[in-house]
């Protein structure tokens, strides 16, 4: 069954994906000479980088979660004007290109910033302060959404009981919310930690020098400026090692959970409020608004200035827009194809004797890039091409491929639940009537198209906003919008950069809604 002919394209897709990834890693490790690693181990710079990566990632994750918990609780229990807007803002801030948000933050807090003109003193943006500011900007909304999802799993009966017993918001939090939250927090912490630990664009732009650098940036420097492949492979192994270690430690801490299965969802119930609850709700709302809102306003403010329209006439802008699209669309499609291949095999394996574990492993293989930094993959690919005698001209395909791999976890998250659901409900019917391959796809299309569109849209957006692999190669034909933006910020042409940022965001929105409408077949709100 699993080896039948209609699954051949899927096998091919997965094989190509894994072979290329494997070959890239092998090519990179070929340049590693572990005998030198003793020297690197003794290098205090490496340890400073590791220490700083650790500190900023832990602080970012901690801050994001600490702010997100009261925010999520408030959003769950209270209905107020602007609540829906705030939720949409959170959704947008998760997909807004990193470099665009960085620009917003620079306008608000950098030199000659709003902050300076408001308070007369300058904000210590470059260094830990700026990194935390940006990381929390991206990850606190993510944390709020994850926590709200966890809240959805709390059976209605618990709120009903709490309301009947007159528990206060604090008691409700301690008794119900915390109980369901605590099993999600380690995973959430880990996710944010990893995202920040391997953070690249933020640290590169706001780190302000070698004092506050992360491993990922150190890898970038080793590759781009020192071209020391040995050091780069050592640093990437170190990064993979530390990430795995943290993952293990955090999952050891996950407490056992007592949960019932009833998931009846009904009306929202009134909890006993108190002055303290009001204060906490209001306080967290204010902090979150102050954190998220100003950079957004800063991004969209230039649209009313004449400079914006002048910038629109620059040919550089349109060239970089073309490069962005030229990379993002193929890499999105590639990510989707690999994702669908993995999905096709995983669904065929799942619910079969002994196949469950394999289905899970397949899914996890898509998360490769969460463990192995994209820069490392890109370098490996570059070396692989060089080994077989193909020159740097093909950096384009490397960027496309690495961006696709980077988007894979998100694509899988978008399509897997729907695909599994179809398999679970109809697999007996499919088997009985031998509906396979294209026939099955045609039958399922109306059910899965919106998930497929969502996956593709995420992949295209991620690739559009990427500033990592392009920065590594940064050669002709690869000056994408984020790259262009990065250069503008670097040369303190922030106002012009803001205009480019608006163009980039508009491009994201247009592609996102186009994909969702054309492929998803319906209007989708971000």
């Amino acid at each position, binding site marked *: 069954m699993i080896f039948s002919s209609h699954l051949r394209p899927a096998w091919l897709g997965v094989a190509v994906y894994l072979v290329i990834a494997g070959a890239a890693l092998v090519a990179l490790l070929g340049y590693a000479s572990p005998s030198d690693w003793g020297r690197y181990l003794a290098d205090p710079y490496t340890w400073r980088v590791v220490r700083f990566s650790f500190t900023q990632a832990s602080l970012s994750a901690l801050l994001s979660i600490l702010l997100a918990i009261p925010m999520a609780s408030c959003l769950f229990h209270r209905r107020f004007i602007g609540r829906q807007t705030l939720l949409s803002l959170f959704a947008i801030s998760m997909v807004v290109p990193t470099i665009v948000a960085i620009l917003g933050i620079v306008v608000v807090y950098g030199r000659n910033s709003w902050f300076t003109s408001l308070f007369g003193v300058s904000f210590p943006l470059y260094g830990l302060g700026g990194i935390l500011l940006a990381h929390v900007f991206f990850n606190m909304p993510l944390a709020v959404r994850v926590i709200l999802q966890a809240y959805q799993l709390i059976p209605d009966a618990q709120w009903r009981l709490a309301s009947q017993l007159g528990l206060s918001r604090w008691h409700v939090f301690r008794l119900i919310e915390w109980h369901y939250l605590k099993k999600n927090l380690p995973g959430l912490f880990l996710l944010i930690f990893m995202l920040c630990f391997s953070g690249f664009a933020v640290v590169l732009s706001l780190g302000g020098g070698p004092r506050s650098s992360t491993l990922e940036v150190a890898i970038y420097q080793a590759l781009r400026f020192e071209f020391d492949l040995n050091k780069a492979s050592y640093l990437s192994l170190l990064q993979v090692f530390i990430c795995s270690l943290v993952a293990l430690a955090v999952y050891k801490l996950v407490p056992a959970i007592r949960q019932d299965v009833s998931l009846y969802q009904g*009306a929202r119930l009134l909890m006993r409020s108190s002055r303290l609850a009001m204060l906490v709700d209001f306080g967290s709302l204010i902090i979150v608004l102050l954190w998220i809102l100003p950079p957004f306003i800063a991004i969209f403010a230039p649209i009313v200035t004449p400079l914006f329209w002048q910038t629109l006439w620059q040919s550089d802008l349109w060239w970089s827009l073309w490069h962005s699209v030229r990379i993002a669309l193929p890499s999105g499609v590639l990510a989707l194809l690999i994702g669908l291949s993995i999905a096709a095999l995983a669904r065929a394996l799942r619910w079969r004797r002994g196949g469950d574990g394999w289905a899970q492993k397949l899914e996890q293989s898509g998360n490769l890039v969460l463990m192995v930094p994209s820069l490392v993959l890109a370098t490996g690919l570059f070396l692989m091409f060089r080994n077989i005698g193909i020159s740097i001209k093909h950096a384009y395909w490397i960027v496309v491929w690495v961006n696709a791999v980077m988007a894979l976890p998100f694509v899988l998250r978008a399509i897997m639940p729907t695909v599994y659901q179809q398999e679970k409900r109809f697999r007996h019917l499919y088997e009985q009537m031998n509906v396979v391959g294209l026939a099955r796809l045609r039958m399922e299309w109306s059910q899965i198209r919106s998930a497929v569109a969502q996956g593709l849209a995420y992949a295209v957006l991620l690739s559009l906003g990427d500033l990592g692999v392009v920065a590594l190669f940064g050669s002709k034909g690869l000056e994408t919008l984020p790259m262009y933006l990065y250069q503008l910020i670097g040369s303190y042409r922030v106002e012009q950069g803001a205009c480019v940022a608006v163009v980039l965001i508009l491009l994201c929105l247009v592609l996102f809604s186009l994909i969702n409408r054309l492929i998803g077949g319906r209007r989708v709100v971000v």
Partner: protein
Amino acid sequence: MLSFDLRYRWQDFQAHYQAQLPLGVTSILGASGGGKSTLLALLGGYIEGQGSIQFEGQELLSLAPYERPITTLFQSDNLFPQLSVWDNIAIGLSPSRSLSDEQKHKVHWALEQVQLQVYADKFPDQLSGGQAQRVAIARVLVRKKPILLLDEPFSALDPKLRSDMLHLIKDLTHRYQWTTLMVTHSPADAMLLGGQALLLEEGRVVVQADAKILSEIPPDSPFNRYLHISMPVK
């Protein structure tokens, strides 16, 4: 005396409940979809309706669920799975679960009433369905609210256990002078509980009578319509 005059709309369903209930047990009968559980949800404050609910001169409609002199026992999920049996009862006395000696004594007493003393440290997932509902009844006892609403809480139990529970409820209702309303599908349960019987049809109270009449229903009574549907004639 509990009296209500309640209107409620949800999509095509329009309900208008009116009745005056004396102390003691009242069974609520009616076909599925007739609005039995809706009535309890309205009384408990879990959904919003218009009109009034009067109990001993007090208007309850504007009160939050926890401010009403009411305890509801649901079909399931009456316990917090994350709390032990003891804590599940204690939380009825104090949300923080830090009890005075007198309150602790009360929890002991309630556990004794439902004969679950040895289960105090167990968790709900270690209990059978009947035991879980008895723990919930123990909490009803410590909460001392004068109105008890039961939404088919014993429907999943075997016949013997079910009749034990009904006897317990009947007994407690008389002993503590409660006003107890129980939704049930079974006329036999209503007869066992005694007191009053309400028949609901399409969101309206069509009959209110002594539960005894269920054993000998006059041919012109609306109860006949319901019973012919719900069980074959003997």
